[in-house]
């Protein structure tokens, strides 16, 4: 399939879905609580997109093609975009733009620290995702982008923690994430040994 077609498809799905959810929430049509709806949708969407992004490299290896790698940055950037909307929606609609309350929540809630940690990583990866940054950072670029393995675990922990008691969904997510990390066990082991020898 043509890469342009695939990219157009990714853009369309990511944006249209977002559009529908926000449209329904803004017009209060068909969902009980529009605020919970958009916060859950963007949060879970960001986690899903990070996981999809992490699937691309193993897929490329397995099928011995570079095609999946060509959309990796795009998917990663959409993960960041969803995460940014998640944060913004929490501040705007859940906290009603109450800045003091936001600061207080940021300081006091460990489960928000974890989410914020994941977001900072996604942010760092997004701003260094361009070719110029790649050239500028040289070898360090890869180490920066290895942070995604920590990021996905933090995002999952934030998701799990936000539930009152649910097990099934976070459990399934964790299984998939651990599988994706296991597929990279050599690389991850290398990261740790490098750190230890330094």
């Amino acid at each position: 399939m043509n890469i342009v077609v695939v990219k157009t498809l990714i853009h369309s799905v990511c944006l249209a879905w977002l559009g529908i959810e926000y449209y329904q929430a803004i017009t209060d049509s068909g969902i009980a609580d529009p605020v919970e709806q958009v916060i859950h949708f963007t949060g879970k969407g960001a986690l899903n997109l990070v996981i999809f992004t992490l699937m691309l490299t193993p897929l490329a290896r397995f099928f011995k093609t570079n095609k999946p790698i060509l959309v990796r940055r795009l998917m990663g950037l959409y993960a960041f975009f969803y995460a940014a909307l998640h944060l913004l929606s929490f501040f705007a609609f859940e906290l009603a733009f109450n800045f003091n309350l936001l600061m207080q929540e940021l300081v006091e809630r460990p489960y928000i620290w974890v989410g914020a940690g994941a977001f900072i990583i996604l942010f760092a990866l997004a701003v260094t995702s361009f070719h110029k940054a790649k050239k500028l950072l040289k070898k360090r670029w890869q180490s920066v982008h290895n942070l995604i393995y920590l990021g996905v675990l933090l995002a999952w922990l934030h998701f799990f923690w936000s539930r009152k008691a649910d097990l099934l969904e976070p459990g399934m997510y964790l299984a998939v994430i651990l599988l994706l990390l296991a597929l990279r066990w050599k690389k991850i082991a290398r990261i740790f040994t490098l750190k230890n020898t330094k």
Partner: protein
Amino acid sequence: MKIRHSNRSQFKDSQITDESVYHNRRSFIKQLAVAGGVTLASQPAQASFLDWFTDGKNETSNNTKSRQLAELNYQKDSSELKRTPYDKVTQFNNFYEFGTSKTEPAEHASALQVNPWDLKISGLVDKPYQLGYEDLFSQFDLYERVYRLRCVEAWSMVVPWIGIPLAKVLERAQVQNRAKYVSFKTLYRPSEMRGQSSRFIGGNIDYPYREGLTIAEAMHPLTILAVGLYGKELPNQNGAPVRLIVPWKYGFKSIKSIVSIELTNHQPITTWNQLAPDEYGFYANVNPNVDHPRWSQASERVITTGGLFEQTRVPTQMFNGYGEQVANLYKNINLKTNY
């Protein structure tokens, strides 16, 4: 006096329309829909395309999922609190017996058979007795109570419940002096409550759901056993056919679909307290000064009509605004440690 021809700029239809009209409008729109799509597109500004879209969707779910809810006879409450619309009250529920998301109860609660029902009042009483399904609506006078409902998750609603003061139900059993607490249990029927048959669906809770009150809280005139809302029987997802309402406590205390009320002399085990004692206490009084470990309880988001940009967040009141009536129950209790 200034007469306004229209206040449409200030309010949405659903904010100023009472429920019966609101529902009639639906059948009106439904008739139009039968007449054909062209008519719909050309109907006056009374109902926008979007309203039609929403209502149509809700109506489908009502027709296919819910049983017929009987109208009740009751004494009205004259409260002027602005009520949360019926659709929100009945489609945004925490009832883990049917799934942990807010929408699952409305989707899956129709599996529950509420008639026949058997509510036992037992324990430290002289005359234990039982109430069947019909008894719930006929043995006691029914009163409407328009109460604020504050969820521990920091959102709130205003619901016109219809129910019986719990004290009346307890008095009939002749409570013994030794009784210090009241223990409540929800129905345990995994065949009809999908969350009870799978710990994954039901949020890993040790069912049946249990709650408890001190005898003074249970006898308080604000405490009711609700059998209806908005003039009709309770929909299943709201805890049919009979549930507790304790308006000054977080919503999880107001246990649904009750089959057992037992008077005891020791503090009963309660479900959420057992599951996460650092987050959910036995008392669970609404208290803006004691935060949940994961979020602030100082303010709450009001669930009402309106989309993303019409949200309101209001300060949470001590005892959910019922302090004048109930504060004296807790004179000698440290509410910070007994949360």
